[in-house]
C-alpha cells in the first residue's frame, strides 16, 4: 500500500566515539577489542574512591566537530551526572552534559528528496562517556560484563526533527561520517560501534501542523539496517493509526535478523535520570582564541572539496559528490593525484573498479587495506601501455583483495603487453593459418569473423597485446 497521505518525521541522535588515544576520564587505551576487562583501571570500572580526570583531547575533538558542523561553541562548559542503574555502567551514572552542551545550533547540508539542497539542523552536541559491553552467556543463562569500552569518549550529535525520508537520513549520516573522518575526530566504524544512530520517528497526516507521538529506535549498526528499521517503523505506526490505534511513546530495539523492532520493556516505571552538576569535574572554559585556532586548523571539508573537484579538476558533480562522501576515497584520490595521476582517469578508476570491488566485497571504503599508491602505479602502467586496461582490472583485483604491489604482480605473472610487433605478427599469422574458415568468411564480408580472429589472436597472446595493434596487423595480413 502507499502512504501518500502520511508524512514521516525523524530526528537523529548520533553517538560517535572519538579517536582519542585514551578514555575520557582515565588513561586506559581506547583501542577496539582486546580480551575482556583488559583495557580497564579502577576509574573506568567505578571502584570506590576514584575520581574522573578529564582528557583534554576530548574537549578539543568535540570543539573541532562542532565547528565543522557549523555549531556555536559554548564558552563555559559543565558536565552533569545522568543517574541510572545498569550493569554496563559501573558507577551507575554517566558523566554527560545536560545543561551546557559544548555545541549548539549547527547544520549539515544534504541533497533533499526533490533534488534541491536542504539543511538538517543540529540542535546540540555534548560530550559523554561510553558504557561497557554486555555479553549473553547461554551456559549460565546470565550476562557477562566487559568494561573495555566503558569510558571511551563519545559525542552525541542531536539533530532537529528535520528528516522526511529514510534517504535523507542516510545522506545525512554519510555526510556526517565523512566530515568527522575528514577532521580526524573519529574513525566512524559502524561495525565497531564507533558511529551509532538512534532514530526518533513519528508519522502524521500530510498537511497537519502537529507531529505524531514518536518512538525511539536503537541498535541499528549499518546504513542498511537503518533504512530497513525506518521503513518498518514508519509502516508500523501508520498501520497502528489507520486501525484507530495510538502510537505509544517508547524505545524500540531493532532486530536486523528478524527485520522487526520490539518495544524495550523496562521494569522501572518511569526513567528519572536525576541529573545534577558533576561535582568531580570543574567547568571548562573555551576561549575565543582556541575557537579561532581550531577553526583555522580545520581541513577542507567535503562541501568545499566537492566544489573544487568540479571547478578545478573538471570532475562531474556526481563523481565529486560520491568521492568526497568518504574520507578514505578522498585520501585514495588525493594521494595519487599528488603523485601525478590524471584526475579524471583516477576518478574513473575509483568510481568504477574501486566502487565495484567495494560493493562486491561488502566493504566500506575505510576498510581498504592496500597501499593507496598502488592504484596510481597501476593507472600509470596502463597509460604507458605497459599493460592493457583489461589486464589492469585483473591486477587491481589482486591489489584490492591481497594488497599486491601491481608492478611486481605484473612481472611475476608475466602480464606485460607484448610490444615486439614481430612476435605479435608471428602469433597472428599462426592464428590466421589455423583458422582458414574464418579468414574465408571475413574475406566474403562477414565482419563478425574478424572479431573472432582478434579474440583468438588475443588469447594466443594471453591478453598482453594492445588490441588495436592486433587489429591493425590482422587486417594487414588479411
Amino acid at each position, binding site marked *: 500500500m502507499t502512504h501518500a497521505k502520511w508524512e514521516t518525521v525523524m530526528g537523529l541522535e548520533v553517538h560517535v566515539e572519538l579517536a582519542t588515544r*585514551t578514555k575520557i576520564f582515565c588513561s*586506559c587505551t581506547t583501542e577496539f577489542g582486546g580480551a575482556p576487562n583488559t583495557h*580497564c583501571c579502577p576509574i573506568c570500572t567505578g571502584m570506590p574512591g576514584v575520581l574522573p580526570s578529564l582528557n583534554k583531547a576530548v574537549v578539543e575533538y568535540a570543539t573541532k566537530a562542532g565547528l565543522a558542523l557549523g555549531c556555536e561553541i559554548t564558552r563555559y562548559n559543565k558536565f552533569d551526572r545522568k543517574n541510572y542503574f545498569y550493569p554496563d555502567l559501573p558507577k551507575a551514572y554517566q558523566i554527560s552534559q545536560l545543561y551546557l552542551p559544548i555545541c549548539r545550533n549547527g547544520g549539515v547540508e544534504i541533497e533533499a528528496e526533490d533534488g534541491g539542497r536542504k539543511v538538517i539542523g543540529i540542535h546540540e552536541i555534548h560530550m559523554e562517556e561510553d558504557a561497557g559491553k554486555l555479553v549473553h552467556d547461554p551456559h549460565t543463562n546470565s550476562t557477562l560484563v566487559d568494561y573495555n569500552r566503558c569510558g571511551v569518549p563519545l559525542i552525541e550529535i542531536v539533530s532537529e526533527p528535520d528528516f522526511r525520508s529514510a534517504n535523507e537520513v542516510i545522506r545525512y549520516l554519510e555526510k556526517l561520517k565523512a566530515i568527522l573522518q575528514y577532521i580526524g575526530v573519529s574513525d566512524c566504524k559502524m561495525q565497531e560501534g564507533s558511529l551509532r544512530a538512534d532514530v526518533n520517528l513519528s508519522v502524521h497526516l500530510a498537511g497537519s501542523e502537529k507531529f505524531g507521538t514518536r518512538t525511539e529506535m536503537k541498535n541499528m549498526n549499518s546504513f542498511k539496517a537503518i533504512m530497513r528499521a525506518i521503513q518498518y517503523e514508519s509502516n508500523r505506526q501508520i498501520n497502528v493509526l489507520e486501525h484507530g490505534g495510538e502510537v505509544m511513546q517508547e524505545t524500540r530495539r531493532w532486530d536486523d535478523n528478524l527485520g522487526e523492532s520490539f518495544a524495550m520493556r523496562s521494569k522501572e516505571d518511569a526513567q528519572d535520570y536525576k541529573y545534577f552538576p558533576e561535582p568531580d569535574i570543574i567547568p571548562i572554559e573555551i576561549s575565543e582564541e582556541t575557537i579561532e585556532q581550531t577553526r583555522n586548523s580545520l581541513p577542507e571539508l567535503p562541501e568545499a572539496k566537492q566544489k573544487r573537484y568540479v571547478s578545478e579538476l573538471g570532475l562531474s558533480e556526481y563523481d565529486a559528490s560520491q568521492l568526497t562522501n568518504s574520507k578514505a576515497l578522498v585520501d585514495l584520490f588525493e594521494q595519487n593525484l599528488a603523485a601525478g595521476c590524471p584526475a579524471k582517469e583516477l576518478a574513473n578508476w575509483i568510481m568504477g573498479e574501486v566502487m565495484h570491488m567495494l560493493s562486491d566485497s561488502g566493504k566500506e571504503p575505510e576498510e581498504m587495506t592496500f597501499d593507496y599508491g598502488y592504484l596510481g602505479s597501476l593507472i600509470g602502467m596502463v597509460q604507458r601501455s605497459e599493460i592493457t586496461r583489461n589486464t589492469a582490472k585483473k591486477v587491481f583485483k589482486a591489489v584490492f583483495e591481497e594488497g599486491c604491489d601491481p608492478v611486481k604482480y605484473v612481472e611475476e605473472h608475466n602480464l606485460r603487453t607484448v610490444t615486439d610487433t614481430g612476435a605479435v605478427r608471428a602469433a597472428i599469422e599462426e592464428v590466421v593459418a589455423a583458422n582458414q574458415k574464418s579468414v574465408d568468411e571475413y574475406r566474403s564480408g562477414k565482419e563478425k569473423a574478424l572479431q573472432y580472429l582478434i579474440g583468438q589472436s588475443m588469447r594466443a597472446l594471453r591478453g598482453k597485446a594492445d588490441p588495436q595493434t592486433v587489429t591493425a596487423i590482422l587486417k594487414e595480413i588479411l
Partner: protein
Amino acid sequence: MVITDELVTYLEALGRIKLPEESRAKAQSDLQEILQYIDTLSELDTEGIEPMSHALPLTNVMREDEVQPSVPTEEVLANAPVKKDGYFLVPRSFE
C-alpha cells in the same frame, strides 16, 4: 511537601533499596520531619543568584591524552563477588 506512602515506594525504587516493613512508617515520618525542616530554605530570597556547584572558581583542569598501562584483569576483578572467564557476571539482563 507531603511524604506519602507512594512517594516512599517511588524513592525506594529510584534508589534500588527496600526498607524493612517494620521501619517504613518511622522512615516516612522521619523523612517528613526532615523535609519540613529543609523546606524552610524556601524562605531564603535567592532571586538572581547564580547556583554555585564549585566553591573555588577553578576552570580547565585537564589531563594530557597519553596512554598509561591498564591494570591486570585479575586486579579489575579482584573484589568481584562472582566472575567468569575475565568477566563480571550478573543475572540475565537482556530482554
